[in-house]
């Protein structure tokens, strides 16, 4: 049982682990097990990170990446919910669209990246298109699945209580499918960020990815900068995912899974 008295472990352990990993990094690189031309030391990387932050160069890069992410996410979510709900309520439409969705989902966005770069150039629209392409299909599936997995009793109850139309959509259908929606959003968010950065790395659009690329092209002297930006990418990812977890916790507080998590945090399982 992990009661109050030991709950400090919940934050202390991760902090210690991160510290140990950073120290191990320093030890391995500074100790000469990996040559500095291949992998910079932790301290050099941190110094580079500090420099990028203090000169303010890091912020436009993060901004450019986040803009692509945000626009892509908004388009994905809006289109996904509308199209997904429409498909879910119509069996024929859904079965017709399923193979198409499957095929598009199977095309790695990265594979069409060169084509999209040729057509749209290394621009924000290119990035947004790729983000949408990567995030949309899985999210759409998630929406359809969520709406369709609605408990028939939930719908019957609504009918029996005389709840109809927009009220039914907003108060019954959306909350009922929301576990799938929120999970879908979280996954889509991670995918969108990854695609943003990949598009920047491969296609050279402005953002964290391009800074990684430029540092990579500059050669060994810029390796600490390169890894600093890689770390920025990871931290951004953790922050966004964490944000969606918080959102999930907030919005889904009523849901069984959240109750289970609260419960297991209380009683301490395994």
């Amino acid at each position, binding site marked *: 049982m992990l009661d109050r008295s030991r709950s400090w472990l919940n934050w202390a352990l991760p902090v210690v682990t991160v510290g140990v990993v950073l120290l191990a990094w320093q030890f391995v690189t500074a100790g000469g097990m990996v040559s500095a031309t291949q992998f910079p030391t932790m301290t050099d990387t941190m110094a580079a990170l500090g420099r990028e932050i203090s000169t303010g160069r890091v912020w436009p890069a993060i901004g450019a990446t986040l803009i692509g992410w945000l626009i892509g996410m908004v388009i994905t979510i809006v289109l996904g919910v509308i199209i997904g709900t429409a498909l879910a309520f119509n069996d024929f439409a859904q079965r017709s669209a399923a193979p198409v969705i499957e095929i598009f989902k199977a095309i790695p966005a990265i594979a069409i990246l060169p084509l999209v770069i040729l057509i749209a150039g290394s621009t924000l629209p290119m990035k947004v298109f790729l983000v949408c392409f990567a995030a949309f299909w899985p999210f759409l599936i998630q929406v359809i699945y969520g709406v369709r997995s609605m*408990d028939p*009793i*939930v719908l*019957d*109850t609504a*009918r*029996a*209580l*005389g*709840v*109809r139309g927009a*009220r039914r959509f907003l*108060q*019954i259908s959306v*909350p*009922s499918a*929301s576990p799938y929606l929120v999970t879908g959003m979280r996954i889509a968010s991670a995918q969108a960020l990854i695609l943003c950065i990949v598009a920047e790395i491969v296609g050279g659009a402005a953002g964290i990815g391009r800074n990684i690329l430029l540092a990579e092209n500059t050669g060994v002297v810029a390796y600490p900068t390169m890894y600093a930006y890689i770390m920025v990418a990871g931290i951004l990812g953790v922050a966004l995912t964490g944000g969606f977890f918080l959102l999930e916790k907030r919005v889904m507080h*009523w*849901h*069984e899974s959240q*109750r289970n998590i609260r419960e297991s945090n209380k009683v301490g399982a395994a």
Partner: protein
Amino acid sequence: MSSAAVFTPTATETVLTVDGLRKIYNEGTDQANMAIDAVSFHVDKGEFVCIVGPSGAGKTTLLRCISGLASPSAGAVTFEGRPLTNVPEQLGLVFQDYGRSLYPWLTNGDNVALPLSARRMPRAERAARVAESLQSVGLGHVERKYPWELSGGMQQRVAIARALSYRPELLLMDEPFASVDAQTRFDLEDLILEVRRELGITVVLVTHDIDEAIYLSDRIVVLSKNPSVVREVVDVDLGDERTQVETRASEQFLSLRRHLLSLVMPKDA
């Protein structure tokens, strides 16, 4: 078997008529499954009718047809003189599975308020009605809580409060007291009897508990095994004043009990 179907607007007005109802699931496919073969009975205004029958007999199916949630394969359901096509406004429904019919994303109060706002009741009146309904099932203090913060019996009562909140004229309940402990069950049974007496509503209740059926009803419809027909309609003349301990121990109760058991369990009888 009591024959149905003549609509007479007299003292004993017939509210609901089920006539030759048949329901086949997956009709027309090779998995066709006849749940109900031919069921006919009628319910008078203000009457309390229980439906009993073995598991899988088609009780839930029958209730779904009566409520307009499902459409029969043959036969007709007439509600207040008109054939049933959709779920009528004046209908209250309590599902067998209360755990799934309360919305976990709404508080208990909001759950009860939902049908009221769907009927465009003004906010102030609605709040008063919600409080009153929850009070009547002895749950005045849980309005702000969520359904999943309550024990099973309490959830069941919230579902009942929700069905009662908009004062339906006909209340359909599907095994509403299953898996609730004896005391809660007795309390709920008495609550329903009381509400019905006060508001003069008509109740159709499905149960697998024969004692419960006798204790509650004016008439009991006994269904056969699946595909079901009406085996018998038993009249229960226990009067209006019933108490759990005495009524259930009365000679009349026990003889009705023996009769019903012999109907339900042919081999034992």
